[in-house]
């Protein structure tokens, strides 16, 4: 753990965060979905969003830095819907105090909208419910109408 501190501090120095959360390794195509999942539009604290940054793993990547906010685990895990390889860094007093991977939940309640216009969730006030049927490719299936969708196609409510 401590061995990686120096390098992390270095890479995060661009917009050095005193306290808060950094979500790294978000695919560039789903960055703004991740922004919606975190509900960043409604935050009052400083937020830095970077996209199309060079990444050895993803080619291009997106990154989100949020000051003074630590998200709860459920919220962070929802990021896995659109960014299964995202890395979470919790920053306290300029130090990375915690590094976490996101874990895709088996079932996703709300957040994702069913793409089927004839689905009950688009016709009655029903919370959406998706089962993850393929963890590797992140394929979800609507619990109600059975429609399968990939994370690329997921519309965030």
């Amino acid at each position, binding site marked *: 753990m401590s061995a990686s501190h120096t390098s992390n501090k270095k890479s995060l120095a661009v917009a050095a965060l005193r306290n808060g959360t950094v979500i790294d390794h978000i695919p560039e195509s789903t960055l703004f979905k991740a922004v919606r999942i975190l509900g960043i539009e409604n935050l009052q604290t400083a937020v830095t969003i970077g996209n199309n940054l060079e990444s050895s793993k993803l080619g291009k990547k997106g990154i989100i830095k949020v000051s003074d906010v630590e998200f709860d685990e459920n919220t962070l895990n929802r990021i896995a819907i659109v960014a299964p390889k995202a890395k979470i860094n919790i920053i306290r007093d300029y130090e990375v105090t915690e590094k976490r991977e996101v874990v895709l939940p088996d079932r996703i309640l709300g957040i994702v909208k069913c793409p089927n216009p*004839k*689905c009950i969730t688009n016709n*009655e006030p*029903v919370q959406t419910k998706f089962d993850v049927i393929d963890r590797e490719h992140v394929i979800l299936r609507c*619990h*109600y109408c*059975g429609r399968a969708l990939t994370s690329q196609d997921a519309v965030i409510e």
Partner: protein
Amino acid sequence: MGNNSLVSIADINKAEILEILEAAAYFEAHPNHKLLDGKVVATLFFEPSTRTRLSFETAVNRLGGRVIGFSDAGTTSTSKGETLKDTIKMVSNYVDLIIMRHFIEGAARYATEVTDIPVINAGDGANQHPSQTLLDLYSIYKTQGTLNDLNITLVGDLKYGRTVHSLIMAMQYFNPTFRFVACEELKMPEEYKQFCRDKGITFTEETNFSKDVIDSSDIIYMTRVQRERFTDLMEYERVKDRYSLHNSMLDTSKPNLKILHPLPRVNEIAQDVDDNPKAYYFQQARNGLYARQAIICRALGIDLSTINRSSDC
């Protein structure tokens, strides 16, 4: 789902499927067993389907139960903007079982979440129609004497046809070999082919409804090729007759072959097939009554194994 609702064929396992088929056989021999004395069943047809509704209502009546309900949402409070939830909650005050059909996909699953009364899905849009699948299975079982190791050929609209998709799901326990016969535009979706691969089910895909395919089939399941499914109407004109069955095509078919079709048919099965003893689609529809009697009893918590045992004597 804490009760015996039936929303999708995937809700029941192999043992339950076999139990339902055995009970269907019992009801075929004893159609008027009054197991539903004093029970009231609602048939809520938010989308009209006379065929399915009559079959379910006959099943309830033959079992000695009573039916309330509606056959068209235009005549109900839904047309005044009442939510499905409110309609289901209201009806739940009166009945022991709800049988519902809806044009909205997922409506029956949602209904099970807002009521403790068991729900049978009689079709929800393009999604699920499990009683159709069970009557198909019963028809196969009855005509072949087994569900195991059969060559089953599915023909026509394999892309949108929910009956063929559900049949594949249900046959997973019985080591079938499938032939998927369809034009490029209506071929079997990748999702179901992957399902077959995952379950070790052998299948081939054909664009020709050839003699070889017909002559090696135990079951040919025909479906309707609908014009409105095509983005290219020229393509429809090209293929519409390619997946039609005529009596002459059955000359060298296997003696045990049976032709199934969920009905209504248009021209995918020629009238001259009707008199061939291998044509089974009208009996298939009648089997729906017995399968639905079994499904209704199961939903009401009536132990099918007791019924099945009583059929031995």
